[in-house]
């Protein structure tokens, strides 16, 4: 089973929730934690894995054979991302703008372009107690993270619980992280910003065909606007984690919420029971 933990707004508590869920799930069976926020991974700060393996991730980018190139301009014309410019005397490439679509090397009439390789980051794999841990680290200056997120998700283990910690927002990297999940847990906070971005994240997950549930972090104990949203859209409000200064202190020191507040484990056990009962675990590939 794959559970994605996502949120429209940043800083709502995705990693707080995902790391605590992993710790509670590990008491019952095998679990993998996949930090897909490759631009600023932080799951390792909470779960402190021992690393076993590192692998670089590369993407194909055009390599231009100057002898064959006729400077016809076709490659710049077909590049939807403007990564190529054809000047009177040369072709210029902006590699960080290339989305590796392959249009240029397939359509170059002179056969002057072939795919070369460029490193964009690395995937690191390790373990934290009984939790299998994977994350990606995008190289500084890179603009395109989905291929690296894909490389992290290749490590998803069939037949066991996989927790995908998604990046914030609703753009391409988030879509790549959430797609294919059996369930998406949307973490929000009781602020107008939290609610606004919860709506966006809900629409995104719905378009991907991934069923959702909501968790409120830093709850005021009431959370009426979020409750109203969930009711209107028939989305389960699964649990609320109360605003808690000790948990915030723990977070700042890299201590997971369920270690600061062991009584919170019941929220995560209840979530796992809900997923089991509703059959999300069974539809897992």
């Amino acid at each position, binding site marked *: 089973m794959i559970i994605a933990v996502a949120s429209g707004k940043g800083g709502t508590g995705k990693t707080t929730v995902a790391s605590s869920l992993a710790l509670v799930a590990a008491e019952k069976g095998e679990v993998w934690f996949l930090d897909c926020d490759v631009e600023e991974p932080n799951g390792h700060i909470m779960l402190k894995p021992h690393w076993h393996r590192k692998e670089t991730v590369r993407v194909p980018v055009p390599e231009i054979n100057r002898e064959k190139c006729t400077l016809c*301009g076709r490659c*710049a014309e077909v590049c939807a*991302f*403007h*990564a190529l*410019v*054809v*000047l*009177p005397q*040369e072709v*210029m490439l*902006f590699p960080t*703008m290339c989305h590796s679509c392959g249009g240029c090397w397939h359509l170059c009439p002179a056969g002057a372009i072939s795919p070369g390789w460029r490193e964009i980051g690395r995937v690191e794999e390790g373990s934290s107690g009984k939790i299998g841990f994977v994350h990606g680290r995008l190289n500084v200056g890179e*603009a395109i993270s989905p291929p690296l997120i894909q490389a992290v998700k290749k490590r998803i283990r069939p037949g066991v619980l996989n927790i995908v910690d998604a990046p914030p927002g609703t753009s391409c990297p988030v879509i790549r992280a959430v797609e294919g999940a059996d369930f998406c847990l949307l973490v929000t906070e009781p602020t107008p910003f939290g609610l606004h971005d919860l709506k966006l994240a809900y629409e995104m997950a719905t378009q991907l065909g991934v069923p959702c549930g909501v968790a409120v972090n830093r709850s005021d104990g009431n959370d009426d606007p979020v409750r109203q949203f969930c009711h209107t859209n028939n989305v389960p409000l699964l649990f609320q984690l109360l605003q808690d200064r000790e948990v915030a202190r723990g977070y700042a020191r890299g201590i997971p919420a369920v270690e600061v507040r062991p009584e919170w484990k019941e929220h995560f056990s209840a979530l796992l029971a809900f997923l089991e009962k509703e059959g999300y675990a069974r539809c897992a590939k």
Partner: protein
Amino acid sequence: MKVAVCAQDNHIDARVDPRFGRCPYFIVVDLDSGNWEGVQNTGTQSSGGAGVQTAQLLVNRGVNVVLVDRIGPNAIEVLGRAGIQVYGGIHGTVSQSLESYRQGKLTILSRANSPSHGGMGRG
């Protein structure tokens, strides 16, 4: 000698646009004949790479000089490699900017004076 000016509208007396990649028009003036033509900038709607696309447009048009207010790093790199001179800091109208250029009052830019995505209004 062709000079292109970033403009908000398709006219020689239009106000200049402070952006390079996302300005709606270029007024391209042939200094030898004094004729001008408006060129619509097709790069304005790009989600990314607007400056690069706009630079390609001016290269294809055979422009020799570009007058801008602000320009980003990728665009100025393309223009530089194509041998196109870039002058910065224009304001007022297109014809006023051309006059400043003729009088040698504009400074040549060798580096970007705006970050990437500077014209996207994200502040």
